[in-house]
């Protein structure tokens, strides 16, 4: 499967959020199929219609639940557009950085749930820029503290996006936050400052603290995988720690 298709699939349905709250019903469905199998010989064919009704209703629940997830996914995409429409970030930056963060997350072998949260947070992290004075000043990563707070207020701390709201707090969000900040900084360096990919990687990896070497290495590996830069360029331009990690 092509990378863009994988990214689109991961971003579009926000799928990993599905099922967490619906597992009781997921368990119950096999039970009702058992009813079908067991009851018909005992009580007659009307039991089959009964169980089919139950199954249809349960199945419909999942379909409806999927539409709730689709709504959250669409909201995330819409919030990702706000800063661009506001002129606060370069066109395409949010989506490019989110895609890159996702690929880096895959490289770091994050779980599906973490990847979905990562992808959503990467999209919404700039929404708080609407609160900045004109003209908004964008900094890669999570930006000014007040922007983070505004973003959290917009995303909403309650409901299913609560963990996304926590993640946009770049200072306290661990490796996921590091991935987003690194991806955003790289994209800004390439598309905003006009640096070459290799030079941008060198900038990102050299500025990264030692405990983020794995994240920088993931960026380097993704760039090599995607054919954006040659392996030799990464090895020549990155920090020693990142280069070691890439080499491994």
């Amino acid at each position, binding site marked *: 499967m092509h990378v863009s298709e994988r990214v689109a699939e991961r971003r579009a349905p926000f799928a990993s959020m599905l099922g967490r709250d619906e597992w009781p019903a*997921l368990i119950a469905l096999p039970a*009702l199929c058992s009813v079908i199998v067991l009851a018909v010989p005992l009580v007659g064919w009307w039991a089959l219609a009964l169980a089919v009704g139950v*199954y249809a209703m349960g199945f419909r*629940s999942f379909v409806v639940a999927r*539409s709730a997830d689709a709504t959250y996914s669409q*909201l995330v995409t819409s919030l990702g557009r706000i800063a661009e429409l506001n002129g606060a970030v370069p066109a395409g930056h949010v989506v490019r950085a989110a895609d890159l963060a996702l690929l880096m997350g895959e490289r770091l072998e994050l779980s599906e749930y973490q990847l979905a949260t990562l992808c959503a947070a990467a999209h919404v992290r700039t929404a708080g820029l609407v609160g900045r004075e004109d003209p908004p000043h964008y900094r890669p990563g999570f930006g000014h503290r007040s922007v983070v707070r505004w973003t959290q207020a917009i995303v909403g701390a309650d409901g299913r996006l609560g963990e996304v709201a926590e993640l946009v707090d770049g200072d306290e969000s661990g490796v996921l936050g590091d991935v987003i900040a690194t991806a955003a900084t790289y994209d800004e360096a390439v598309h905003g400052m006009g640096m070459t990919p290799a030079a941008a990687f060198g900038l990102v990896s050299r500025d990264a603290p030692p405990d983020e070497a794995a994240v920088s290495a993931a960026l380097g590996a993704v760039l090599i995988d995607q054919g954006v830069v040659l392996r030799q360029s990464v090895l020549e331009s990155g920090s020693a720690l990142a280069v070691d990690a890439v080499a491994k």
Partner: protein
Amino acid sequence: MNSTARSLAWPGAMALAGGGVLLVFGLPAPLLTWALLTATHVVLLRTLPTPHLAAWLPLVALSAAVGADDSLPAVLLAALIGVALAGRPLQRGAACAATAGVPLAHAFAVASVGGLQVSPAFYFAAGAAAGATSFVLLGSAQRDKGLAILPEMSLAGAIAAGLGLLTATAGPLFAPLCTVGVLVAASGAFARREVEAAEAHTVGSLMRALEIKDLYTRGHSERVAGYARLIGAELGLDPVRLARLSVAGLLHDIGKVAVPRRLLRKRDRLADREYCEIQAHAPVAATLLEGIGFLEPVVPFVVEHHVHVDGGGYGTVGDDGPSLEARVLAVADAFDAMTTHRPYRRALTRAYAVAELRRCAGTQFDPDVVAALVHVLERSEFVPPAVGVESDIAARLAALGVPDIPEVISARL
């Protein structure tokens, strides 16, 4: 495999598994059937990434073990597991407990008198009545959803009764299955509530973005939604159209998140170029909203509400001119803009605003809509739409430690 294909695979694979069991084993033991179908289901579910997959496997095994034993303690334990599985609904309070509990109780009541030879149709009808009863017993918060969940609850009750009959006919072995069956049937109503919560969250997020950009615009949007709803009711719109109209009122200025704040708060007359920047908020709103499925019906209202009935104004509109909802929004928008303080002037009187609307009726505004607003205002019980935004935002932002927003201060002055 995309999500649709994956969803369609569920019933097909289940049917195959059930049919396979029947063919190979004839009438198998409950435990075998349960385990096989559960395993099939788990394999299918594995295609859906879920971090809690491992957590509920032991529960499945426990339920299977209990379900294979028809002693009374085992049945009670199974019922307890059923209640645990229903934790989500029960956590939602008494109304939700009634939703699951009434059909459930009915099912067991039917089971207790199962020795009577009564037509299955009687049980289904009785169950449907029980489901409808549960609907009536729901709290007001759920009742205001209208009759939308009545069919689901009636069906849930019918299913509960049928399962109760099954228990009475085939033995208490089916009791745990009855429990989970009722919960599955009731889950449809809760899934719908999840959707409603997602939609409310979406509108709330967009509104919060707007209020962080410009507090006046948020309050204005809330009042416009209130006026629009009153006008729509006066015009006899049905509840669905009224609900969409209300949402359109809330989001009609959402495109202003992309308008520079200096323009939104400018005290002097706007230059032509600045006016063009303001006008851009309509297409920006469409860009923000059109990708959100449940908001698609309201996008035309938002985009058209600045188009005059004589074709003037700005925005895009079809050959038939602005929709009725857009015309309602236009009147509500103008009325609220005139009767509230703006950076460039103080609020005008209600009488002046009405006179101005009447003067522009037939050119800028729909005369019927203006007349409807006048009727609303003339009612003795009329109360202007309330706006709770200031206390709401102050509390929320303070809780988050958000720096004070200049607009909050100025709006209070």
